[in-house]
C-alpha cells in the first residue's frame, strides 16, 4: 500500500509540474496554453542531446533542458499568443493546439520517429527496504518537486516579482496603469512555467528511460484534468490536485472489478469535479 502511494506521488509530481505552468499562464492571460506540453518534450530532447554530446552530467542536462524550454516558452508567447490575445479566446487555444501538433512532427523530423533511451548516471539518495523502495530517480523527482514548489511559493508570496505577478493575475489593466511592466511579468511567467515543464520532461525521460516525439500527449491532457481538479489559475491547487489525481488513478486502477483504464479515471474525475465543484477544489 505504502509502495503504491509512493509510486503515485512520484507520478503526481510530473502532473503537478506540468499543471503549474499551465495554471500560471491561465491565471495571467486566461488562455489555455495547449502548446505547453511541447516544452515538456523539448526539454527531454535538449536534455538528451546534452547528455549525448556535451556532458555526462544529469545536472547539466537538466539545467540546459530547462533553460532551453524557458527561452522557447517565451518565444512562443511573443510569436503565437501575444498577437492572439485580443482575439476571441478560442483563437489562442487553436493556435496552441496547432503548435503542439506541429512540434511533434518537428521533433520527429529532427530526431527521427524512434524512441531514444535516456541513460544518465547520477548519484542520489535512495531507500531500499523490503517494504518500501524509492529509487534514486523517484527520490530525485520528489526532491525536485518539493524544492521547485518551495521556491515558487517564496517567489510569489515574498518578492517584489511575486507581488506584481499577483497584481497582474487580478487585473492586467490596473497593473499596467500602476506602472507594472506587464510584458516583463508575462515573459517571466512563461519562463518559469516552461522551465518547470522542460524539467518535468527530462525527469520523466529519465524515469521512463525514453524520449520520443509524442511523449507530451499523455501528460498534456492529464495536466488539463489537474487544473480542472485543482481550480483554474490556482498554483497550490495544481500541485495538490496533481498528486491527488495520480493517487486516485493508482488506487482505483488496483480495484479488480473497476475495469476502467487509467485515462478513463482521469476524465471521470474531471467530469465529477465539473458537475459538483466546477471551480475545482481550490478555485476562487
Amino acid at each position, binding site marked *: 500500500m505504502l509502495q503504491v502511494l509512493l509510486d503515485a506521488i512520484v507520478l503526481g509530481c510530473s502532473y503537478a509540474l506540468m499543471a503549474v505552468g499551465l495554471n500560471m499562464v491561465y491565471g495571467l492571460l486566461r488562455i489555455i496554453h495547449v502548446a505547453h506540453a511541447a516544452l515538456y518534450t523539448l526539454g527531454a530532447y535538449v536534455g538528451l542531446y546534452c547528455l549525448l554530446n556535451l556532458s555526462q552530467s544529469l545536472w547539466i542536462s537538466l539545467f540546459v533542458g530547462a533553460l532551453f524550454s524557458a527561452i522557447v516558452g517565451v518565444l512562443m508567447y511573443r510569436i503565437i499568443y501575444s498577437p492572439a490575445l485580443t482575439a476571441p479566446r478560442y483563437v489562442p487555444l487553436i493556435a496552441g493546439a496547432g503548435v503542439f501538433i506541429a512540434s511533434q512532427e518537428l521533433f520527429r523530423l529532427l530526431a527521427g*520517429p524512434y*524512441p531514444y533511451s535516456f541513460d544518465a548516471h547520477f548519484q542520489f539518495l535512495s531507500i531500499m527496504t523490503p517494504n518500501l523502495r524509492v529509487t534514486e530517480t523517484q527520490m530525485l523527482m520528489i526532491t525536485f518537486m518539493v524544492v521547485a514548489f518551495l521556491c515558487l511559493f517564496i517567489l510569489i508570496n515574498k518578492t517584489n516579482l511575486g507581488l506584481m505577478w499577483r497584481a497582474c493575475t487580478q487585473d492586467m489593466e490596473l497593473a499596467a496603469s500602476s506602472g507594472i511592466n506587464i510584458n516583463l511579468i508575462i515573459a517571466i511567467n512563461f519562463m518559469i512555467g516552461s522551465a518547470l515543464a522542460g524539467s518535468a520532461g527530462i525527469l520523466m525521460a529519465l524515469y*521512463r*528511460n525514453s524520449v520520443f516525439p509524442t511523449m507530451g*500527449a499523455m501528460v498534456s491532457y492529464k495536466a488539463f484534468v489537474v487544473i480542472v481538479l485543482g481550480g483554474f489559475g490556482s498554483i497550490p491547487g495544481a500541485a495538490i490536485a496533481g498528486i491527488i489525481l495520480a493517487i486516485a488513478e493508482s488506487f482505483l486502477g488496483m480495484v479488480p472489478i473497476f*475495469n476502467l483504464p*487509467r485515462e478513463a479515471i482521469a476524465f471521470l474525475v474531471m467530469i465529477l469535479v465539473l458537475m459538483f465543484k466546477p471551480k475545482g477544489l481550490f478555485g476562487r
Partner: protein
Amino acid sequence: MRRFLCIVMVLMFVLCGLLSVDAMAQETVKIGFITPLTGFAAADGYSSLESAKLAVDYVNEHGGINGKKLELISYDDGCQPDQASALTRKLIENDKVAVVISGSYSSPSRAAAVICQQAKVPFTSTYAVHPSIVEAGEYCHRIGMAAPIQGRVGGYFAARELGAKRIALLIMNNDFGVSLAEAFKETALKLGAEIVYEKKYPLGETEFRSYLNAIKAADPDLLYAPGYYNEAANIVSQAREVGLRCWLMGDEGYDSPKFIELAKTAANGVFITTDLNRDSDRPMTRYFLEKYKERTNIDADMVGASGFDAVMLVSHILNKVGTKADDIIRYWDTIENFEDCATGPIITFQERSAIRPMDIQIVLNNQFRYFYRYYEPEIIYLNPPSGGK
C-alpha cells in the same frame, strides 16, 4: 526583377514538364503503399516504408516485373482511418496502382481494405492483426499474423509449454491488444489455465506500477501483456522494479530492437510471439536483416519484415499473372510455400490470411533469440484443416 522571376518560373515549368515526360516514357508497374509517417505511429511507418523500398530495389535488381520496373507510390496516412480511405482512393484513381499495400495499423488498414474491395483492386495488409481487415471481401489479404492465430500461439505457449496455471492479462486498449488478448484468453482457458487479473490500459500510458502491484498481489505464473514496444518497455522494467517474479510474455509488437534499448536488462527473459526469426539462416531473412541495417543504420524489426514480405509476395504474383485484378486474386489464393520472404515461409493463405510457422523468441543477453517454433496445423491455421481435428 519581375521579368527575371517570370522567366525563371517559365523555365521551371518547362523543366518539370520535361522531367515528367521523361518519367512517363518508361513504363512501370505501380504498387501503392500507405503508412504512417507522422503522428504517434511514425516509427512503425518508417520501418515499414524503408523495408518496402528495400524489397522494391531487390525486385528491380532481379529483373523487375517481366522486364518493367516496379514502382512504389507511398502516402502518409498519419495512422488515421479517414486519411487512409482518402489516400487509398487517390492511389487507385489517380495513380492507377495495380495493388495497394497497407503498412499501417488495424483501423486505417481496415478503412483502406473497404475502399479497395469497392474498387475491386487487390489489397493486402502487412502487420495489422485485426480479424476484420480481410472480412472486407475477396480482394483483401493479410501478410502478417492474424490476431486469432498469434493470440492462440501465445496461449499454447503459456499454458502448455510453460505450464502456467494462473495468468494475468494487461491489455493495450486498441484493436491490436484486445484482439490478441481475446484469442489468448480463449486458448488459455481451454487449456485449463485461470485468469487471475485482467485490465486494459490506454495507448501512450507510461505508468504501470499500480497495475503491477495489483498483479503481484494476484500472484500469477505468467503475465501476458499484448501491446507495442514503447508501453511494453515500461511494463517490463516496472514489473521487475516492483518485484513481479513471473513469466512475462508479449507479442510481435515488442519485436523491435528499441524494446530492448528502452527496457534495458529488464527485457531479458521476456517471451514474444513473432514471425521474424533473427537466428534463421534462410537467405532471404539474412538478406533483409543485413540490408535493412545497412540502409537505415537501425536494426530491423518485425513491422519492417512484413512490409518487405508484402512487396516480395505481390511482385511474385505480378510476375506470374500480370496486373489484372481478378487474375491476381485467383492466383493469390493458390499460393503455397512461398519462400522469398524475410519471415518464416508462407505455407498458404487461409481465409486470405497468411499461414506460416509461428515462432516464440526470448530476450537473452539483450538480444532476441529463437526459442520455439510451432508447426502444428491446429495451432497455426486460422481454421485447422479438415484433415486435422
